């Protein structure tokens, strides 16, 4: 296959050509590929190891047992790719919709989706390769060397993303359904693809983050595969406010919320911190479904401020309480 590609194609495959040229000009730094090529050349043509690299490559590629590339084969390859895509799409669709119905176990089920995709695309890739070329073990080694060099020098970003995707699937720093921050992007993971991860941002935008970002940017998951997620709610009150009363109100606003879940696994807490011009009452609690994160925050904040006003608890000077008259700006902090 490499032979055909190198001889018959000069466009669109420059990476492979470059890699081959590099191999022919260099005997250092690409020892694995060279060794494999040498091995293959020794086996197939009996040339001595000191022969030029260009001759070796030529011998390697000329001996590859390629099948004739005709229209049925091309159609076959295209249909395999389309079939793999449709299969992954249907399976993802079914699993995601089924996962939504079983609530508690949603993260466990969605975790399987990237694995299935990897499996399907791997099988499709293997099928395509074997339908074009029949490789022996030594040929496979030689081909892998060339292929690796091509990846390394020409398509490194694409394959870095694919490797990132595999790492995500195996290491599971996040899963479909998690609320994550990747770099400066925050949202719910809607899809983990072979090349990129798609996030749904709070403003309902779909953000595509290359999987390679995993290696270069910090990744934080708000729920780590769980359906519940901790939410931090900060309210700021005037320094002269009755802080005990304010804490009690926020605590009760949290524990009586329709979105909250509380147990030994999902504890809650309410904390007070004094600042020069205000006091911060912070509540930490778990929302029972991470998709309701913002509804949970909004409900607790709104109900707490209604009670604050009844109890004479004011916002800091110069700031209006939400819903307290002219302005409805939230007082939540972003740390």
């Amino acid at each position, binding site marked *: 296959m490499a032979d055909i590609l190198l001889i018959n194609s000069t466009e669109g495959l420059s990476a492979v050509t470059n890699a081959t040229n590099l191999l022919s000009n260099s005997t250092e730094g690409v020892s694995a590929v060279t060794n494999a090529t040498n091995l293959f050349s020794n086996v197939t043509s009996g040339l001595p190891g000191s022969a030029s690299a260009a001759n070796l490559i030529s011998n390697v590629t000329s001996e590859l047992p390629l099948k004739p590339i005709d229209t049925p084969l091309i159609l076959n390859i295209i249909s395999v790719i389309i079939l793999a895509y449709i299969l992954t799409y249907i399976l993802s669709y079914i699993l995601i919709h089924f996962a939504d119905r*079983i609530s*508690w176990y949603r993260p466990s089920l969605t975790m399987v989706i990237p694995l299935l995709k990897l499996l399907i695309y791997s099988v499709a890739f293997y099928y395509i390769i074997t339908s074009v070329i029949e490789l022996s073990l030594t040929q496979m080694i030689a081909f892998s060397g060339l292929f690796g060099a091509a990846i390394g020098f020409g398509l490194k970003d694409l394959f870095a993303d694919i490797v990132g995707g595999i790492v995500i699937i195996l290491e599971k720093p996040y899963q479909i359904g998690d609320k994550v921050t990747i770099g400066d992007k925050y949202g719910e993971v809607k899809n983990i693809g072979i090349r990129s991860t798609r996030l749904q941002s709070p403003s309902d935008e779909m953000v595509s983050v290359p999987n390679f970002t995993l290696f270069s940017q910090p990744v934080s998951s708000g729920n780590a595969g769980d359906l519940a997620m901790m939410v931090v709610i900060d309210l700021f009150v005037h320094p002269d406010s009755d802080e005990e009363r304010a804490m009690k109100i926020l605590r*009760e606003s949290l524990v009586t919320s*329709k979105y909250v879940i*509380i*147990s030994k696994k999902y504890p809650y807490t309410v904390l007070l911190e004094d600042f020069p011009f205000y006091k911060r009452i912070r509540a930490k609690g778990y929302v029972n479904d991470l998709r309701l994160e913002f509804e949970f925050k909004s409900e607790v904040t*709104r109900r707490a401020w209604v*009670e604050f006003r009844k109890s004479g608890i004011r916002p800091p000077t110069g700031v209006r309480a939400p819903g307290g008259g002219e302005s409805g700006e939230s007082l939540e902090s972003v740390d």
Partner: protein
Amino acid sequence: MADEDNPDSGGTVIGYERELADITGAIDRYGTGAPSHIAIVAEPMAGRTTLVAEIRRIYGDRVNYLPLEFVIMDSTVLDCSTYEGDIILIDNCQFLSTRKIGGFDVLDMFLRTQITSKKLFITTWNIHSWQYLCSVMNLDAYFPTIVTLNRMDMPVLKQVILSRYKPGEIRFLDEGVAERSMFFSVIHSTMRLPFTSAEISVPWIKLNFTLMLRKLPRKKRVQISLEDVILEKINRIAYGNPGVALMLWDESLKDNAISLSAITETPFSISLDTNESFILSVILSMESLHAKDLAAIAGSEMDIDRVIYRLVQQRLVRDNAGYYSIEPFALGPVTDYLRKTRRLW
């Protein structure tokens, strides 16, 4: 459950003998040191009333009985200093709190009264309300003795039901079929957790070997009791709840005869939004709530009339002169649904 309507009829509480022994043991130990307050925790219609009646029968004048029937707003109602008996039995303590801001004040006051009192408090709670309050305010720390009434298995339920009749008084007719496989049934084993006194009820699959044997060749068959098949169906529909099972039994019994075809199962297909699920969980936890209490819990953001209409229309909730409660036959499906959607923890 057998003598629910007549607390003074005498006899033991069928099915809850061990639980009753735990309670009487705790009461008998009372007298030395701080009282070991008792909490009796159960699902709606699971037999709390029967147990309370039995305690009152056994301890007579020592017991001051205070049944709560609606949400308590004024903590002075719970002033027990004037009571003469040394045991204070408060029924339906879920009415001491409501799920709203400021809804825990009466319960806080009650718990402070309880831990400073020399009297023994026996309290009964709805299990869902109990679990919520344990999560939110560590309620279980105030009760050294916690007795949980678990779901019943068929043999116990059979005892409960048939104890109301003379031997041979009920005829079991061989009509109809059990809609589901009777080869297995779900039982609830009680397990004690290590390093703690807490007990949990674990659902478990029990294989019914005798029923399996019916499938053997005729010569090897074992005759299975028809009444077991009928009672198994009743227990399955009732989710092991004795109150619901008794209600179903009474509805299915005609002229002291019962058959499989006479036992009808009401199907429930529950689909609710967040507000409806929340209000349903509140009603389940409180057992019975007035519309104005529901409106206070719902707050201004929720259209409570629409929510209640939806729940009543789906036959999950019933209206009893302004008080809303879960339909008895919907108790099992509603509980399952709310657990699945994480409204019950």
